[in-house]
C-alpha cells in the first residue's frame, strides 16, 4: 500500500501533476475564505496595517500546514475552526454579547475570557508554530514581533470583520507589503524554501542517535539506504512517527525502526498522498449531502512504474475534460454514489489494456474531533470491473417499481442512514457521538467492493431497528418513505450478492470444465 502511494507520488512528480513542490507539502483546509493580516516590512521594522477578508487562493500561497502539536499552524498561517471554544461562531457570539449593554457581569467576564483565549491561541499562536521556532530569518522574526505587539488591535479587527458573516472555517495569514509590492508568504522564495526544508527535514534531536542506530536501515519503498526513520513531519496523515510502533519481536530499541524511509521516498509519499486526495478520496455523505463521518481512499495498485505513469496521465486528462470524458466514468459514478442519490445514465468506454493489471485498495478512515485522520480498515483486491458491476446493479435496482415514482434511488448514503444508530442526535443534541457504526459501514463497503459475501443480518437488524424507531410516531408517510429506502438497500445487497454467487459458480464451472 505504501509503495503504491509512493509510486503514484513519484509518477505525479515526474509528470508535473502539481504546479510546485509546495502544493504537495502544504495541507488542505476546508476554508473558503482567508483573513489576511497586512504587514508592511521595511529594513528594520514590520508594521501591522489592517486586515482583509479574501477568498482562499490555495494553501500553497499561505504556506499552511497543520501543526500536530495543537498550535493553529506550522508556519504563521493558522486555521480558525467554525465551532469550538476558539471557533468563529464562539468569537462572534462573545463579541456581540460584549457590545450589548444588557449583559451580566458574569457573562461579560466569560465573553472577555473567550476573546482573550482566542487572542492567545489563534493570533499570538500563529507566531509560535514549530516551523517558525526553527528558522533564523530576521524578517520573519520582525513579522512575528509585530503580530504579537499588535495582537489586541488585530483581535478587534478580526471581530469587526467576522461580526456579520455566516460562520465558517477560516484561515488566518499574513501578506507582506514592501517597496516591491504585496506578496503572500508562499510567494517569497526565502520563506517558501524555509517551509520546504522544515517539512522534509529529519528531526534535529534524533540526528545523533539515529546516526548510530540506523546504520544498515533500508527504505521500505526503494530498498536504498534509509537516511532516517524519523522525519520532522509525518509522511502520511495516518502514520505518526513521533510514537513508537513495534515490530513483532517487540524490542524497544527498534520501536522507531518500523517505517524507515529515505528522503526521496518521503517526498514521493507526500506527492502520492496529494494525488489520492485530489482524485481518489471518497466520502459517504448523509442523504441530504451533509457531513461525512466515513471516507475512503481508493488507491490504485499497479506494480509496473510505466503503467502508473500512464494511469496518472489518463486520470488527469479525464479530470481535465470534465463531464465530457467517458473514461474513468466508473470512478466519477462511484463518487456520486457515495455522496449523492443520483441516477446513473452513461457508462464507460470499453476497459483498456491497462486495466488488466489494475486493482484498488480501499483505505477507510474517519476524522476525529481534532481533524486527525484515523484508520478504520482496509480492503485489498478491488477490480475496476467489479466497480462497474456495482454501478450496473445500482442502475438495475433504481429501475425497479415503484422507486422512480416514489423518488427513491440507491446510494451509499442509504447505508449510512440505516447503520447510524437511531439514538444519535445532531450537534445540538445532548448525546455523545457514537463511533461503533463506522466500522460496520466500512466493513460492509469493503465486502461490496471486493465481492465478498455481505453481512446481511447486520443490515436487516439495522433496518428493522430504524423502522421500529419511526413506528413510535405512527406516521404512515414516514413509515412508507423509510420502508422504500430500506427496500432499495436490501434489493441492492441481495442482487449484488446473488450476482456475485452466480459469477463465482460460473467461474468454478469454467475451471472445472
Amino acid at each position, binding site marked *: 500500500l505504501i509503495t503504491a502511494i509512493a509510486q503514484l507520488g513519484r509518477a505525479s512528480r515526474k509528470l508535473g501533476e502539481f504546479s510546485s513542490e509546495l502544493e504537495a507539502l502544504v495541507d488542505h483546509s476546508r476554508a473558503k475564505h482567508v483573513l489576511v493580516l497586512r504587514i508592511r516590512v521595511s529594513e528594520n521594522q514590520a508594521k501591522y496595517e489592517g486586515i482583509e477578508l479574501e477568498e482562499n487562493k490555495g494553501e500553497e500561497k499561505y504556506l499552511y500546514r497543520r501543526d500536530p502539536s495543537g498550535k493553529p499552524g506550522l508556519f504563521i498561517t493558522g486555521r480558525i475552526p467554525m465551532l469550538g471554544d476558539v471557533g468563529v461562531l464562539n468569537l462572534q457570539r462573545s463579541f456581540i454579547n460584549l457590545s450589548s449593554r444588557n449583559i451580566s457581569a458574569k457573562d461579560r467576564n466569560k465573553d472577555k475570557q473567550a476573546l482573550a483565549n482566542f487572542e492567545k491561541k489563534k493570533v499570538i499562536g500563529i507566531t509560535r508554530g514549530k516551523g517558525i521556532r526553527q528558522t533564523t530569518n530576521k524578517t520573519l522574526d520582525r513579522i512575528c514581533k509585530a503580530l504579537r505587539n499588535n495582537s489586541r488591535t488585530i483581535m478587534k479587527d478580526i471581530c469587526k470583520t467576522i461580526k456579520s458573516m455566516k460562520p465558517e472555517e477560516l484561515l488566518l495569514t499574513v501578506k507582506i507589503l514592501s517597496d516591491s509590492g504585496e506578496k503572500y508568504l508562499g510567494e517569497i522564495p526565502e520563506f517558501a524554501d524555509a517551509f520546504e526544508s522544515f517539512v522534509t527535514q529529519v528531526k534535529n534531536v534524533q540526528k545523533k542517535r539515529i546516526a548510530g542506530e540506523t546504520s544498515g536501515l533500508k527504505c521500505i519503498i526503494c530498498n536504498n539506504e534509509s537516511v532516517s526513520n524519523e522525519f520532522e513531519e509525518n509522511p502520511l496523515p495516518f502514520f505518526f512517527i513521533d510514537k513508537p510502533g513495534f515490530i513483532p519481536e517487540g524490542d524497544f530499541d527498534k520501536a522507531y525502526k518500523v517505517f524507515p524511509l529515505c528522503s526521496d521516498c518521503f517526498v514521493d509519499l507526500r506527492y502520492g498522498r496529494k494525488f489520492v486526495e485530489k482524485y481518489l478520496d471518497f466520502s459517504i455523505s448523509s442523504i441530504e449531502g451533509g457531513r461525512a463521518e466515513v471516507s475512503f481512499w481508493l488507491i490504485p495498485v499497479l506494480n509496473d512504474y510505466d503503467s502508473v505513469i500512464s494511469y496518472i496521465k489518463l486520470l488527469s486528462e479525464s479530470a481535465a475534460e470534465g463531464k465530457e470524458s467517458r473514461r474513468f466514468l466508473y470512478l466519477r459514478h462511484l463518487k456520486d454514489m457515495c455522496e449523492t442519490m443520483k441516477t446513473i445514465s452513461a457508462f464507460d468506454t470499453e476497459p483498456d489494456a491497462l486495466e488488466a493489471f489494475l486493482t484498488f485498495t480501499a483505505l477507510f478512515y474517519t476524522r476525529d474531533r481534532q481533524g486527525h485522520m484515523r484508520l478504520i480498515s482496509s480492503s485489498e483486491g478491488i477490480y475496476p470491473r467489479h466497480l462497474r458491476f456495482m454501478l450496473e446493479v445500482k442502475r438495475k435496482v433504481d429501475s*425497479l417499481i415503484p422507486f422512480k415514482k*416514489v423518488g427513491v434511488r440507491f446510494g451509499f448514503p442509504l447505508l449510512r442512514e440505516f447503520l447510524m444508530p437511531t439514538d444519535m442526535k445532531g450537534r445540538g443534541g445532548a448525546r455523545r457521538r457514537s463511533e461503533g457504526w463506522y466500522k460496520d459501514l466500512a466493513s460492509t463497503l469493503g465486502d461490496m467492493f471486493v465481492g465478498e459475501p455481505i453481512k446481511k*443480518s447486520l443490515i436487516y437488524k439495522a433496518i428493522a431497528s430504524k423502522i421500529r424507531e419511526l413506528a413510535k410516531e405512527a406516521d*404512515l408517510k414516514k413509515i*412508507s418513505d423509510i420502508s422504500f429506502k430500506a*427496500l432499495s438497500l436490501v*434489493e441492492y445487497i441481495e442482487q449484488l450478492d446473488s450476482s456475485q454467487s452466480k459469477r463465482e459458480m460460473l467461474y468454478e464451472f469454467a475451471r472445472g470444465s
Partner: protein
Amino acid sequence: MSLHEEVDKSSRISQIKDFMEAHKGLLRDDTLRAVCATGIATGILLEVQRERSKRESMPFWGRLNRLEMDLERVRQLFPQIINKLHEYSEAGYHDIIAYLGSEEISRLDWSRRDLPKDVISLAFAVGIAQGYWMIQASGGE
C-alpha cells in the same frame, strides 16, 4: 360497476403482482410474499381508517406491535383486516383483498418459523408502504 372501474381495479392487482415480482431479493419465497401481502392489506386498512377519522387516527395501528412482527402475529392480522373493512362497508378494495388472500396470503408456509424477525418485519413494513402508496397514487376510492 363501470368498465372504467373494472380496468382500474385489474390494473391495481397487476400493480401488486409487478411489485412482488420486481422485488425478488427481499420477497424471495411464498412466505415472505404472504407477509408483504398482509402488509399491503394492513396499509389499505390504515389509510381507510385515517380517511374515516379525517386523518386523525388509525386504531388498527395499536395491533401492529410497533411493526415488530413474527409469523404468528402476521397470520392473525388478515381475518381482522377483512372484518374491519366489512365493518366499515368498504367495498372499494374488495378485489385487491380477495386477490391478496387467495393468491398470496394463503401460501404462507407455517413451517418457515426459522425466518428472522427482522426480515419478516421489513417485508411487512414494505407491504404497508406499498398499500399506502397505492391508495395515495389512486387518490383514494
